[in-house]
């Protein structure tokens, strides 16, 4: 409807309908508000409608392909709000789209503003829309279609409660199930949810429970995001469905071998791959594989696929087998031509493959240590994911630091019952981790001042709290005071890194913390 009006194919005013071939001749499929006001409903036969109403009705033939195209255009436009956009499938009547705004709403100044902005732009483009924002796709769909208002924003965790009052049509069920539920007098989702699940499943099938769970968030619902068609992809269909890891790995190797010459011709390699597995019963599984460096060697890709399948194990659920396997390159990176056979592999090549293998096998990144521009010990170093080229944010290691402990605690751990001979000197005895440590030797102090450009609130709060809060604030690092660090050796031979939080002040108990251990 909107598509026809926007394209200038239909007049702006007057009742308008779209009809398609259905059982028993042409039937209405979509109506504009004026036609609905005449009492028309989708699904009525066109002949009876023409006879019933007295006003002229403009009828256009349905064109599902053009509708789909228009929806995809809208999806691509909505990609400006968030990267993950999924058009409605056939279950949702294919007339809307999901936008996953998780982590993207702050760019528009909050969820409410985002919805207002989206609605305003759609209205300016003369696209009538109903918008709902919730933390469950199914719940958001139900609220958008059957909610009380055009714009609904449900706070996190409130979607399950918000959909209870909606009619059962909002569950994305097939019409037969809906009419069956209505015959039983079940009109609201809340009523349905209160019933025992077993009889419902026996009577209406597992699909009803699945939709119900998706609407209230008991079962996750993955969106099928719209992605641009990959420039490099290959697929292979099988007459006899394949299952088993060896077959899948061999197929992935063959597909990559098909892609490799095309990648090589363009001087690029794959940094991200997606292996899409179409199961015989229509279920599609997609495995995304990220690589630490551009790669086009079929053997290595096959090895990574094998490791990934190892990790998935039974979760892959081949069912009756896969009939189509497709491999697409989702991310590419420049990969200059390199002599592969002669000479040694460049340094780090093996580590790159190991990093990829661990990422596929365990799902965990390989880290390495980097220095940061800070002299606060817990901020001065951090692990970052290993990459073939060290990122620019990593600083070189300073070589003039006083001794630092081998193991540093993220926060200082309070040392209690501290006994010092001189009030501003190192401790002589203290209790830490339920053990009394007698200090045989101490070196220091090394004073490390707080970074005054950070945490101004914590700093002033500490000053205002005064000595009375001394014990309450014994949470260790981050109090915003200068620290005096001492290296001490206990009589047992253990070496610790202790600090006193804040300078010595008469009348105030000194707060001591253990911050690290030396080898």
């Amino acid at each position, binding site marked *: 409807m909107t598509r026809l009006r926007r394209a200038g194919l239909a007049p702006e005013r007057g009742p308008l309908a779209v009809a398609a071939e259905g059982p028993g001749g042409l039937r209405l499929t979509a109506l504009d508000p004026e036609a609905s006001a005449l009492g028309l409903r989708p699904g009525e036969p066109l002949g009876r409608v023409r006879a019933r109403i007295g006003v002229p009705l403009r009828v256009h033939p349905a064109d599902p392909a053009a509708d789909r195209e228009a929806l995809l255009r809208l999806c691509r436009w909505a990609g400006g709000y968030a990267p993950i956009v999924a058009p409605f499938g056939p279950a949702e009547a294919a007339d809307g789209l999901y936008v996953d705004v998780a982590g993207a709403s702050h760019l528009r100044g909050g969820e409410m503003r985002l919805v207002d902005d989206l609605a305003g732009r759609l209205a300016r483009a003369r696209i009538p829309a109903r918008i709902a924002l919730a933390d469950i796709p199914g719940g958001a769909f139900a609220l958008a279609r059957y909610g009380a208002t055009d714009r609904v924003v449900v706070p996190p965790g409130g979607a399950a409660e918000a959909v209870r009052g909606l009619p059962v049509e909002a569950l994305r069920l097939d019409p037969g199930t809906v009419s069956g539920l209505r015959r039983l007098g079940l009109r609201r989702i809340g009523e349905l949810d209160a019933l025992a699940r077993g009889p419902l499943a026996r009577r209406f099938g597992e699909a009803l429970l699945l939709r119900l769970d998706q609407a209230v968030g008991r079962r996750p619902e993955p969106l099928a995001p719209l992605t641009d068609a990959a420039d490099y992809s290959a697929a292979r269909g099988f007459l006899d469905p394949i299952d088993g890891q060896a077959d899948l790995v061999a197929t992935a190797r063959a597909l990559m071998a098909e892609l490799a010459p095309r990648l090589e011709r363009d001087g690029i390699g794959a940094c991200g791959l997606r292996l899409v597995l179409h199961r015989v019963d229509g279920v599609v599984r997609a495995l995304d594989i990220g690589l630490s460096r551009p790669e086009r060697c079929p053997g290595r890709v096959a090895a990574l696929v094998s490791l990934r399948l190892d990790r998935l194990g039974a979760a892959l659920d081949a069912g009756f087998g896969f009939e189509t396997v497709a491999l697409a390159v989702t991310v590419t990176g420049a990969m200059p031509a390199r002599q592969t056979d002669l000479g040694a592999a460049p340094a780090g090549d093996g580590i790159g493959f190991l990093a990829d293998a661990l990422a596929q*096998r365990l799902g965990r990144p*390989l880290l*390495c*240590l980097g220095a940061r521009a800070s002299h606060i010990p817990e901020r001065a*170093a951090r692990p970052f994911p290993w990459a073939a080229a060290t990122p620019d944010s990593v600083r070189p*290691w300073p070589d003039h630091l006083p001794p630092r402990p*081998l193991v540093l605690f993220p926060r200082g751990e309070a040392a209690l019952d501290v006994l010092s001979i001189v009030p501003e000197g190192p401790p002589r005895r203290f209790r830490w981790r339920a053990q009394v440590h007698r200090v045989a030797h101490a070196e220091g102090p090394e004073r490390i001042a707080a970074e005054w450009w950070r945490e101004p609130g914590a700093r002033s709060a500490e000053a205002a709290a005064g000595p009375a809060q001394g014990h309450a604030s014994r949470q260790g690092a981050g109090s915003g005071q200068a620290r005096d660090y001492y290296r001490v050796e206990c009589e047992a031979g*253990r070496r610790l890194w202790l600090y006193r939080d804040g300078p010595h002040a008469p009348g105030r108990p000194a707060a001591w913390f253990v911050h690290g*251990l030396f*080898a």
Partner: protein
Amino acid sequence: MGLDPADETERARGPGSSRERLAALRARLSGPGGPAVPHPVLPLGLPGVDTHLPGGGLALGPPHEIAPAEPADGVAAFGFALALCGRHLARIPGAALIAAAPGQPLPHGHGLAGLGLDPARLLLLEAGGDAEVFRALEAALHARTLPVLIGLLGGGLPLKPGRRLQLAAEGASPPLVLILRPAEAGLPNGAATRWRIASAPAARDRFGGLDNPRWRARLERCRNGRGGDWLLEWDHAAHRLRLPEPLARDAAAAGRARA
């Protein structure tokens, strides 16, 4: 074949060739890989310690188990493992992998300098459990790109993963594999050696300040070798372990007493 006693040609060679035949027989007995090649080792550079170890050093390939003498000595055991890692890395290029179970300490980048290690040559993996540590070490063993692998376990080293590590390490140019585990008594496993490390008062420099770290290392179990108990000192600049001379230690102590 030469083993057949009825083979006339073999017999015709006479008794002078019996030594060769014996060598051929031994080669056949030692398995399909041909004559046993001497296993690569990492010598500790201390004759007193190396003679206790088979082959004159820590064998590369099979895992070596390092446990603290008491729970509080965990950092000392970690330091000893990193000292061995530093010694190996000083001899060959490459990087070391530390795979840590949750709750196990990761090294502080600035503190590695005190042990003479370059933080850039250290890779870390925060595993989700002991099983993932074993899987990561196995993957790294198969990849054969890293010369040192260190696993920090939350529990012990059971027999099965130990044996799997041992099998994965077989082949050319094996890495040094060190397994750190908590202080509890260990069950028999595939480890080649088991060390118990306790902290010891550090060496003193000439002004009485803390200098090189020292550990009391007890070689509790050693396959085809002898156990032992030593006080070891790690010289981070030279990347070598030392047996501190008792005289020097006494002199430093005397100096402290005077001061």
